[in-house]
């Protein structure tokens, strides 16, 4: 038994759903005076507890709106849960939306440093890995071109190359990465499999039961913000498929 690297205890996430979104002061004051500020409480996640041990590859299954993305956001630290505790040990890299931090007026080169900084890398690290990133993304000739002139495939490739250049201890993946053309997709899958083989811990969200079965050894099944079942990937997937 390895030690747990992700420990989630009784995590719950509450949203306030208002009938109409009030996002300005004028409406807020008017509604407050008319006593119309009604909020509907809504728990996107409730009583979520699980542990992931080092080297585990955990798949998260569930329909749209089951709370999968919210769970990933909580684990990657973007959202703070309303209740419950979370413990994460090790370097966590989220592969959510690639290149979300790009500045379109910046060149490819400048974006490597900017996006790298957002992901928490140091300058020395980026200097050292710069060639590797460019090589992997296959865009050497375009490094001094502003990103706004990149094709969406090139952006995604660059984003993927920057995000995966580190050796993360925990990798958070949302859906499968369909990046660029068929050739690059193979390459990116190979890179992810390489990371898998190195024994990193993975949290993987997918709609595809096939993928979870193929890639994961453990799984959680979420429905309406609650855990329906967790355990061995094969078992959970079969039950999920039946439902």
């Amino acid at each position, binding site marked *: 038994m390895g030690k747990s690297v992700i420990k989630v205890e009784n995590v719950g996430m509450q*949203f*306030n759903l208002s009938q109409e979104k009030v*996002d*300005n*002061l*004028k409406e*807020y004051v008017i509604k407050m005076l008319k006593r119309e500020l009604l909020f509907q409480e809504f728990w996107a996640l409730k009583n979520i507890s699980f542990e992931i041990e080092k080297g585990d590859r955990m798949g998260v299954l569930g329909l749209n709106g089951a709370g999968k993305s919210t769970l990933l*956001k909580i684990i*990657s*630290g*973007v*959202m*703070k849960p309303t209740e419950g*505790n*979370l*413990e*994460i*040990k*090790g*370097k*966590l*890299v*989220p592969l*959510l*939306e690639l290149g*979300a*931090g790009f*500045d379109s*007026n*910046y060149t490819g080169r*400048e974006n490597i*440093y*900017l996006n790298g*900084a*957002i*992901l*928490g*890398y*140091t*300058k020395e690290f980026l200097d050292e890995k710069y060639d590797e990133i460019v090589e992997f993304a296959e865009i050497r000739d375009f490094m001094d071109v502003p990103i706004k002139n990149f094709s969406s495939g090139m952006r995604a490739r660059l984003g993927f190359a920057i995000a995966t250049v580190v050796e993360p201890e925990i990798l958070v993946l949302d859906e499968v990465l369909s990046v660029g053309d068929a050739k690059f997709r193979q390459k990116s899958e190979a890179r992810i499999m390489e990371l898998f083989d190195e024994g990193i811990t993975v949290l993987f969200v997918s709609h595809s039961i096939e993928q979870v079965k193929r890639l994961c050894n453990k799984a959680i099944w979420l429905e309406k913000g609650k855990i329906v079942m967790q355990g061995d990937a094969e078992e959970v997937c079969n039950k999920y498929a039946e439902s």
Partner: protein
Amino acid sequence: MEISKKFEHRFIVNFSKYQYLLKELIKRDIKIKYRRSVLGIFWSFLNPLLTMVVLTIIFSAIFSMTIENFPVYFLTGKLVFDFFAQGSKGAMMSIIRNGAIIKKVYVPKYMYSLGVIFSNFVTFALSLIVLFMVMIATHADFTIYILYAILPILLLLMFTIGAGLLLAALTVFFRDIEHLYGVFITMLMYGSAIFYPASIIPQQYQFLFNLNPIYALISLCRDSFLYGQAFNTGTLLYASISSVIILILGIVVFYKYQDKFILNI
């Protein structure tokens, strides 16, 4: 991204870890602002300089009796005010503008606000060169008191960071603050005696100047650059207290509401 933490205290603990990010954000803001303009960073010199020339021509005729060195008088006011206005406005929008990335990757959110403020501060520091050039051109006295200006400039930075964080947090929830603040800034500009002498305002309204912390900071800077005299203790005290209060208020409000930003951007 080391996340062996329980979310508390990340305000301070993470600062050193994300220092490089702050540098990159400052660099980005400055680079993007001047990219594709032929004169580049010189715009930050030219803009106050040209405004000064125009206003000097217009106003020196009117106020020449009361203001001894109008170009320097105007520039100190304008530079201080512009830094505050640009910095706080930029910080106000910083969370909303970076919404897409805030939703994806965890970074201490105040970094985005600080990035905008510091990049404006760099421009401000560079434009002080213009001030010195104008001081030389107008044969102003260079006294030891110029070094004292560091103090009001530091207070100005604190004040701007506080106001920026406060506005950034509030604007996430109430978008129309952006427009209200635009009007407020215009009012503040006319109320800070930038291009007219404070003495032309009737006695019964003078208290407005005494209440305006930006005016206090401007007068402190004028004491150093223009008049070559020690600070007025009352003004210095008021400027210090208001800067510290705004800074603390900004940090507290930002810290309290930062976890809810993501639900509103």
